[in-house]
């Protein structure tokens, strides 16, 4: 049993034309047993910046609170909002600072920079990050997620198409994974605001 697979998770972040979407499942389990069907794994860190935390649930919550702490101090001192690239770097550094006793989290970051261009990045549990322009995935069924995204993704989708793609990719991936699923949530971030929708999927 791997600690990263103890609670279960599935998440995708994907870029569209001047928009990004981030989607995650809702399950919280303790190995085989399902404990919650509305566990939050994607968090808004600013109005155009979202972070998805996949992995050990305790670390999901702690890391979220820690990132909020770091973000609020940054905004007080710098008197400006943190950009997605800077946030991604901060996240990497926080994770690496625990190199020899890590947070069991494999996060994804999705946001729009100041020119409203999509910013996507993902990292491993010790802070090695990658930046992409199409999609990033994380969780207990990354094989499924990569396959679905690679198949369904096309560049320059509008917000509605992006929503459909994210929803279908997520739902199909979690159905073949025992540890993730039990519903989903999708956030589409556009220059004018964020659209959030809950997904109805197989409740098993």
């Amino acid at each position, binding site marked *: 049993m791997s600690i990263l697979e103890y609670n279960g998770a599935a998440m995708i972040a994907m870029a569209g034309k001047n928009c990004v979407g981030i989607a995650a499942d809702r399950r919280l389990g303790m190995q085989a047993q399902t404990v919650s069907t509305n566990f939050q794994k994607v968090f808004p860190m600013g109005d155009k910046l979202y972070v998805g935390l996949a992995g050990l649930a305790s670390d999901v919550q702690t890391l979220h*609170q*820690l990132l*909020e*702490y770091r973000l*609020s*101090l940054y905004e*007080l*001192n710098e*008197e400006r909002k943190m950009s997605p690239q800077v946030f991604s770097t901060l996240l990497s550094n926080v994770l690496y600072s625990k190199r020899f006793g890590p947070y069991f989290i494999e996060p994804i970051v999705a946001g729009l920079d100041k020119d409203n261009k999509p910013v996507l990045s993902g990292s491993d549990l010790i802070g090695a990050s990658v930046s992409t322009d199409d999609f990033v995935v994380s969780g207990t069924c990354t094989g499924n997620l990569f396959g679905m995204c690679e198949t369904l993704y096309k560049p320059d989708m509008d917000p509605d198409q992006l929503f459909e793609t994210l929803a279908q990719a997520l739902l199909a991936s979690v159905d073949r994974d025992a540890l993730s699923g039990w519903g989903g949530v999708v956030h589409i971030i556009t220059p004018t605001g964020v659209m959030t929708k809950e997904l109805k999927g197989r409740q098993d």
Partner: protein
Amino acid sequence: MARRYDSSTTTFSPEGRLHQVEYAIEAINNAGTCVGILAKDGIVMASERRITSGLLAPAKTSEKTYKLCDHAACNVAGLTADANILIDQARIYAARNHYVYQDPIPVEQLVEHVCNYKQAYTQYGGLRPFGVAFLFAGYDIHHGFQLYQSDPSGNYSGWKATVIGSNNQAGKSLLKTEYKEEAPSVQEALMLAVKVLNKTMDGTAASVEKMELFRMTLDEDGNCQHHILTAEEAKDVIDSVAAEASSSGDS
């Protein structure tokens, strides 16, 4: 006679005074005035901007008003360099408290923490005290809106209205007569604050460049709003105070 006892911060004089602390307070009485007023539905803080040179490029939004956390802000009178250290301390403490308890820090606790930090410099180490006085404005669900004043000794007290910095005695005496038993509205408090600054800055005409007006209120969702008045909004307040003064002069 006090000479022998004033070089060390951590020694009492025979009269039971800490001279270094008193000298620090003197430094603040030469600094730009700050007035704070508790209103029914918020808090108002106004400060005198001392523009030392037209060539100065401002690095931050304000050198008098600082946000400490979502629900607290402070005004500074005294050595800005000293103030920066204490403000960093306060911000980190408030943020850390929020991280640990996932709850906003009660305002008095934040004030007391900053004051305890200042007090240490009057008792240990042989370092000089901080030459700063603060006006803290904050909101929490336990006690609503609160206004606190603190000085280099580390002492603090809660106020309905108070003044720090140069000519604070003149400001305080004006507040004593003008601050009504029933708390003013934020708009009335802004006008009263400008009146106080007019008095403490006597000789120099009131103008938007010389005054900074700040108000803290709650929005419909119960979240604290920090707002430094724009030049236009400040001008409106200053003009209405001037209008009121001239009309009452006529009658």
